[in-house]
């Protein structure tokens, strides 16, 4: 039985030519502007974090590591609350990586899906979706730290 031949596209452009056309006509990201914004926004968030750590060390008398942990925890709170108020996505729109990479961005990535899927219930919606992005972060962070720890054990 012969295979029926499909009528070829009427478009007179090959896939390769079209790829090049797309590449040429698709606007590129404004890299310089994005990099500067990321630098400023990321720098501001980290400076703010440093001010908080300083406060914990100098006014509450915490030791350095404890102050850093407390500072991280405080920033997570702030990132979560700003996400709740619907403000954090605007920070990332302008600051890009400057909003995503600090731990406030991590808080945003946990709260936003949980917020979004609240309508789908508290167990699968909120509970499940909290870990949409936090899950991979923990999986890869913990796994890689264990691997490095084991390598360290073997080398010693």
């Amino acid at each position, binding site marked *: 039985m012969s295979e029926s031949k499909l009528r070829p596209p009427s478009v007179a452009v090959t896939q390769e030519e079209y790829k090049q056309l797309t590449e040429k006509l698709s606007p590129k990201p404004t*890299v310089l502007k*994005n990099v500067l*914004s*990321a*630098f400023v926004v*990321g*720098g501001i968030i*980290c*400076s703010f*974090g*440093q*001010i*908080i*750590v*300083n406060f914990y060390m100098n006014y509450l008398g915490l030791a350095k590591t404890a102050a*850093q*942990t407390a*500072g*991280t*925890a405080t920033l*997570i709170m702030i990132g*979560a*609350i700003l*996400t*709740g*108020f*619907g403000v954090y996505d605007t920070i990332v729109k302008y600051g*890009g*990586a400057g909003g*995503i*990479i*600090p*731990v406030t*961005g*991590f*808080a945003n*990535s*946990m*709260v936003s899906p949980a*917020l*979004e899927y609240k309508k789908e219930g508290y167990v699968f919606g*909120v509970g499940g979706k*909290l870990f*949409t*992005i936090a899950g991979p*972060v*923990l999986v*890869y*962070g*913990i796994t*890689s*730290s*264990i691997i*490095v*720890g*084991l*390598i*360290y*054990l073997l080398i*010693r």
Partner: protein
Amino acid sequence: MLNNILPAFLVGGLLCVAGQLLMDLTKAKITPAHVLVGYVTGGVILGGLGLYEPLVRIGGAGATVPLSGFGYTLVKGAIEGAQSGGILGVLAGGVQTGATGIAVAVLFGYLTAIVFNPKG
């Protein structure tokens, strides 16, 4: 006290710049989730090689606030665990040092999600 804010600004800003370049110069498949996973793993690897410690000494919060700082915390705990408790120490060490951060994230993530509604 104020003289550690400028280094925090600079180191934090530069770490974010690296992430921005990664997002802008690679194919669109890199989502915020990929960047976060990349940074935490990067922090683990650099921490394991001893290259993250100087960043923390110079930049303070500029190195601990970005998610790579969390990776550094995890690997520091794993290595300290290795020194004191062998394999069991390795397994427990990372999670133990990261515990406070994880607990706060879960708690506040949950509370905020319950209280607020998405605005779009």
